[in-house]
């Protein structure tokens, strides 16, 4: 009897160990991610997106993974260069055999990557590429939890109209994002306020000295200057506008449409130049977050000791949506996942995410991405203390000039 008992106990232990090891050795689901991690890409935004993606994976794995399998993310560097992004996407699909891809910063890179995703029919969730042109391609594999240019253009133009100004100068970077947003902004402004004279000067994203353009503005200051540039170039132009006394001043508003104000290095770079800057914010600490959003904000704060930016939430939401779609599809097969993505109705960090099917700039876009326009009234003012000045239903103060 004793021997039989030992055999039974041993078999039980071996069985338990086998089950445990089977659970751990379940083949992981590999999701690919392409973000800029070297120049001339925006490494700051790439790092923020990566932080959000990693948080989501951590949370999903704690909850048991997807379809009983752990999730892993394989990261590739786009360097913010379209051909590098294209090669990275192709590598993830053909060599790493990823089931789907999340990521994307810099619209010109997403333009290139979307072609690859379409060619190989791999679902791709865009984290932070705003250009309408990517959506207008109508690729069924491409989904957008990121905001799009049209939404920001409308918000910015309506704010400018509310300011009641006459002359506006837009300074976009020479990318699909910058030029596309400037075009959309001008078009919408013309339709709602045809009396406003709005011109633009396209600037090089890799340049450092914008004096020739700023000297021209200093001679004949407009009522509003609207830079549309990713960091660090976005910071450089704000500093140089301040240095030459062009904006913000008693005469000229400064309106940033690149949501720079939310980024963790904003005040390390702009200092006095950021006082009285009004800017689009896709996340503001007073903004209503879902329970999931509050949890992500808390976890990010614990890990990094600083407030999450909107890019962290965007990165998180992209993976969260991907995981939900795979779960509902019940398999990794692309057609099934794409079908599930189209039917998404999921609570993300900042609201319930669904994808529009309307062709054009909102194709497979989460339309209701929340945004507001804030204004800093002090140097080094935390985002939480910056008043919201637009839209009127969210406003906590009126915009002010120096």
């Amino acid at each position, binding site marked *: 009897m004793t021997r039989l008992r030992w055999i039974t106990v041993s078999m039980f232990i071996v069985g338990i160990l086998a089950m445990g090891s089977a659970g751990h050795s379940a083949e992981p689901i590999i999701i690919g991610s392409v973000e800029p991690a070297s120049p001339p890409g925006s490494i700051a935004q*790439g790092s923020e997106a990566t932080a959000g993606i990693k948080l989501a994976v951590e949370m999903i794995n704690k909850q048991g993974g997807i379809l009983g399998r752990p999730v892993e993310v394989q990261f590739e560097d786009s360097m913010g260069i379209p051909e590098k992004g294209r090669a990275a996407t192709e590598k993830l699909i053909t060599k790493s055999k990823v089931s789907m891809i999340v990521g994307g910063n810099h619209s010109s890179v997403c333009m290139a990557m979307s072609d690859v995703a379409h060619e190989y029919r791999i679902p791709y969730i865009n984290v932070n590429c705003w250009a309408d042109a990517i959506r207008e391609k109508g690729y069924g594999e491409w989904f957008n939890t990121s905001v799009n240019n049209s939404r920001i253009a409308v918000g910015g133009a309506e704010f400018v109209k509310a300011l009641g100004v006459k002359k506006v100068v837009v300074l976009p970077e020479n990318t699909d994002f910058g030029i596309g947003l400037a075009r959309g902004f001008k078009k919408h402004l013309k339709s709602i306020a045809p009396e406003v004279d709005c011109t633009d000067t396209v600037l090089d994203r890799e340049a*450092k000295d914008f004096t020739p353009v700023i000297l021209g503005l200093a001679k004949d200051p407009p009522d509003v200057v609207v830079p549309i540039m990713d960091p660090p170039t976005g910071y450089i132009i704000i500093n140089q506008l301040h240095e030459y006394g062009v904006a913000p001043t008693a005469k000229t508003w400064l309106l940033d449409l690149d949501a720079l104000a939310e980024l963790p290095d904003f005040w390390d770079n702009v200092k006095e130049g950021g006082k009285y800057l009004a800017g689009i914010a896709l996340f503001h600490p007073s903004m209503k977050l879902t329970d999931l959003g509050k949890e992500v904000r808390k976890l990010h704060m614990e890990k990094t000791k600083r407030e999450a930016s909107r890019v962290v939430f965007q990165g998180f939401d992209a993976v969260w949506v991907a995981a939900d779609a795979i779960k509902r599809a019940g398999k990794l097969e692309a057609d099934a996942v794409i079908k599930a993505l189209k039917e998404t109705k999921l609570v993300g960090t900042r609201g319930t995410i669904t994808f529009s099917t309307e062709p054009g700039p909102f194709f497979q876009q989460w339309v209701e991405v929340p945004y507001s326009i804030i204004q800093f009234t002090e140097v080094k003012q935390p985002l939480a203390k910056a008043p919201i000045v637009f839209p009127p239903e969210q406003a906590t103060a009126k915009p002010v000039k120096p």
Partner: protein
Amino acid sequence: MDIFITGIIMGTFYALLALGLSLIFGILKVVNFAHGEFFMIGAYAYALIALRLEVSPFFVLLPVIVIGMLLGVVIERLLMRPLYQKYTEWGAMRDEYAIIVTFGLSLFLMNLANQIFGPYAISGPGLRPLRERVILGDIVTMSSHRIIAFGVGALILIIAYLLVRYSPWGKVIQAVSQNRFGASIAGINSVRVSSIVFGISGVLAGLSGALLCPIFSAEPFVGALPAVKSFVIVVLGGMGSVPGSIVGAYLLGVLEQFGAVYISYTYRDTFGFLILIIVLLLRPQGIFGEKAREV
């Protein structure tokens, strides 16, 4: 007039950067591809010391000089010297090794800065607050920082030029630059001269980065574009020519500004290459360069 003055100011910063590159080429016949990273380290040193220690930005220029000098000397000692010390005749050195070493060093320093300081940019305080402006009628409106930084840069440039041109050490540098082997026969320690030149180059590039840091922001890859411009200037002025790099820098600074205002801002950074092509077609050795002589 303000366009011209802005061009002169930018030209001064370009000259600081290009002069170091030119000196290294003159002495070692090596193009230092890591020169932009000397600029980057100067910018970081300035921003971090000024912000963390909260000392006057003027005093921060001193540690920047020390850091630039040490960086140059250490790099020459560890990476460049092994390439040439065993060759008795300079012509025997394999230039391509030096190119690979400095190119690798550039990538290493950029990625090291990315790991240490993170991907986020940081801007240092101005020598005067950026909002403080100097207004001279309709002629010029500019921040006090830019004017003072120009003054400091011009002063350093003049001192560096006078030292290289007239001081005993400068004459030694010139001798090694003209004929390293001959200078060695005459008793000049060419190894030490190389070390000093690398140190001076580190100081000049570091100071250029520090003075521009409040306007450009320090980030791991900030040196890339200024370095490209200094390569253009060195070729434009004549490889290894000190007056050539200074004149080339001012020429580029001014022409860039005028081109951007009167032709197109979009093509601003291409004007330098356009000027370079024209000069090289008409005078292949550069403005102040000497024709290569085969003996």
